[in-house]
């Protein structure tokens, strides 16, 4: 994660690019039955977790909708669907991104990673996942995939963060259970595991 990319700058960037999907709190329909005039190409190929997937994406469809409802990648959670909580955090070209607040078409040329893509084929957990297990970082677990993706982004940018840097790196992810302390313990352990 680029530590210079603050949450505020990120959101402003999303808004400036016209990628913000909805602020009404209503889930965007994933079927795309109505196609506005001049709509973009529907069948697109996107790189998700190292695999190129062909998927029918409506023009107004958010990345979170595509992942969850088209591709069955339900590890990406929707807590607010309006860019507040970070439960839907995924990586787009290594940058942690709220999947609820970006349109799939706007990132179709990017390299998208979700929590499902971290585990090795042989079942070995990613160091962040392993560290979160060892520290029992999750409580209810609903925000955990987002916390993990934010931590992965942080550690790629800064493999040995201080606790304060880790705190900044995960500050866009809310945990209502209040497990922040255990998530930070997990990030610091993950940095040790490497």
């Amino acid at each position, binding site marked *: 994660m680029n530590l210079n990319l603050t949450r505020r700058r990120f959101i402003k960037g999303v808004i400036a690019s016209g990628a913000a999907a909805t602020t009404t*709190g*209503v*889930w*965007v*329909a*994933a*079927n795309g*039955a*109505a196609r506005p005039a001049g709509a973009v190409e529907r069948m697109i190929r996107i790189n998700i977790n190292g695999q190129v997937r062909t998927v029918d994406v409506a023009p107004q469809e958010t990345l979170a909708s595509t992942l*969850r409802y088209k591709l069955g*990648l*339900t*590890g*990406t*959670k*929707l*807590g*607010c*669907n*309006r860019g*507040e*909580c970070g*439960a839907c955090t995924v990586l787009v070209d290594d940058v942690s991104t709220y999947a609820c607040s970006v349109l799939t078409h706007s990132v179709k040329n990017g390299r998208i990673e*979700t*929590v*499902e893509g*971290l*585990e090795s084929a042989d079942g070995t*957990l990613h160091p962040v*996942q392993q560290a*979160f*297990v060892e*520290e*029992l970082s*999750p*409580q*209810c*677990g*609903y*925000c*955990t*995939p987002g916390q*993990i993706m934010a931590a992965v982004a942080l550690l790629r940018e800064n493999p040995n963060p201080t*606790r*304060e840097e880790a*705190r900044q790196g*995960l*500050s866009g*992810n*809310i*945990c*209502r*259970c*209040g*497990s*922040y*302390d*255990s*998530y*930070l313990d997990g990030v610091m352990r993950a940095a040790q595991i490497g």
Partner: protein
Amino acid sequence: MAYMHIGKDFVPPDVNGKVTGRIKYAEDYTREGMVYARLLTSPIPHARVVNIDASEALAMDGVFGLLTADDVYPDGEPQSTGLKVLTNEPTLVGEPILALAAIDEKTAETAISKISVTFERLPFVLDPLDSLAEGGPDAYNGGNTYVFRQGFASEKWSADQVASFRAGNEPTAEPQQTFAYGDLDAALAESAFVYESAFTTAGYPHQSMEPRSAMAYWENGKLYLHGTSQSLSALADGMASIVGVPQEDFVFINEATGGGFGQRARANSIPSMAIPAKLSQKINRPVMMRVTRDEETAIGGARQGFQGWIKCGFKADGTMAAADLYIISDNGGKGGGGDAYSAADCISILYQTEAVRFRGTSIGSNTGHRGAQRGPGQNQIAAIIAPILDKAAEELGIDRLKIRQINTPQNGDIGGASRTPFTSAYMPEALKMGAEQFNLEERMARSRKRNGSKVTGIGIGQGYHNAGRSGMDGIVRLTADGRLKVHNGVGNLGTYSYASTSRAAAEVLQMPWERVDIVTGRTDRNLPITSPQDGSNSIFTNTRTNYGAAMDLLGKMKEIAAMELGGDAADYDIGDERVFKAAAPSEGMTFAEIAQKGISLGGKFTGESDLPEELNDFTKISVSRLAGDSLMGIYHDAPHNNNPPGFTVTFTEIEMDVETGKYDIVDMVTIGDCGTVVHPQGLKNQLVGGAVWGIGLAGYERHLYDPQNGLPASTGYWQSKIPTMMDTPAKIKTGWVDLPDPENPVGARGIGEPAMGAVAAALASAISDSLEGHLFNAAPVTADMIINHVAGVTSEAVPLAQNNFRG
């Protein structure tokens, strides 16, 4: 005592699913032919539905049907303040009026936009005191309050009485509810320092991360409901009757829950899950109902706010002689709660007050649904009482730790309205441990020291909640392959208590953890009834049931061994998954052999006869389905009498910026007294999680409503201002006393709720300390309030305001 499992960390079986994203929450499921429900909710705070015209919507392609309150309640809606499945009499913005099912959500939304609902607007009220004033609006159709077993009533004070209360004076009107013990007048007369003030605490929403989405379908006469719950079998028990389906035909599926905090403990606090169930029944298709954040905020529950008055008397030696409380509690548009009573009860217990009087009245407002939220009552008052203790210490010339030690509850004490003895109480040990770890003496030297615009504040807080129930059931089984199955009906909301309480059974049988299977996640796996997982009770309640069931199983195993190998059951011992003669360990049977023999014997060994007489009906259904194919241990837990308390203490240092009203938490140490520690990592999570909630209560969280139209302003995470990682310390230090409770077989008591109260109290104490001992008599104390105080602006826009900015 040397335990094999108790007190040791382990990897709960669901953690892997949480870090890989594989574990499923209700909205993650799909079903062939599934259609989608959307809600039409009330746009106004108080109304009556006069007419619904859905003809255009129902004529649309892809629309399958509609569910209204008339479908759910053909004989009329229940006349109570409880949250309803759907309603024609909304009393808060966002209350569901109807649900419509369609091929997809977009079609459903479009169809809903074509439904014409005619509302009769009714007067609304946002502040209970405005309703209490003579001539003020009532939140409900039958009045402004609900009296148990009597119905709606209208409670009114004279304008002068309300104005006097708002001015900070003792209310004079007759309360709805009271308790008292001791001679209050004499105790106040004996007091060397008496503090009296009005106070407020804010209500605010639970905001669980997972919205209460649900999916339902019917198959072969059975209802399958994928939902969210913090109490798996206890919630299923109640939900079956809300939907109107026999318990044996209801399957509740709930592998994981994205947070609960009180509002997903019981079926009547989350009746919206009945909507997809009823709609699915009506249109004969699987129905998914996704709930938005706004909808979750409206019906997802909220803490009761207080508008109160308190008078405390302290003797010259620091003893809290008297506490007199009068509290108006905000019942919101739906629901209610016993927070005010619990608040007074908490003071009695935490400070062993010699004389207590409580007077309380609950009044509705057309705001969010109220109900139990983490430490309901105890945690609000913790933030109010801590600075009062500090003030008393200052006035009486007593050390701030010492005044808490003088009044501390301890073993042998009684407390509360019921004057019930504790099962055990180690608060003195917790205070001592916390003070040492925090290095209190050295830090006190920094108290109130100023560096530029920053002032150091030191705070001490205490938290309490009663933390254990009884009367529930346990089921464990030994299968033919010698594995132990622990059937556990505790919900999975993130405490891991479904797993940690199962370890009590493994402990009894000295079973390696990898040979234990926890059977949970859906009710057709045949679970015992448990208490709702609220009130910090799970660890106490369900270690008792699992331990008891395992003891029943162990007795049967030894009996079988004696039948096969001779002698009496008492001659046998266990170890290494064998039952053997204590005097001749080589003579024995493996657990698998014992199980196989038990299965062949049948009868009481396999749950087919001789069940405990008091076994709950829910459990009887499960046992009847399991009977015959394994060796079973079945147990009904007899009620216990005394109060198992959960206690916490917190010490904190803050750096207050008196120019901005913001403060940094420099350090925080929080110590739990919850008996024997069963699961250290789980306990640490409860302590740090409770701390984050305490930070929110003390400084940030509150309901806000537009006073003109009654529209909610705090409908999301940021508007509610729940704490983020940047609002909390980078490290919260935790510890625990770890002394056993005699009324629990493994010595355990609960902790989740007091973990919050102690932190809220410590922060309120520290804020006051950083401002020369000023008492705000409020929670939260926001940056605005601090700046106003520093600037000398003492008047609030509306004294004792609820659900509104405080000026």
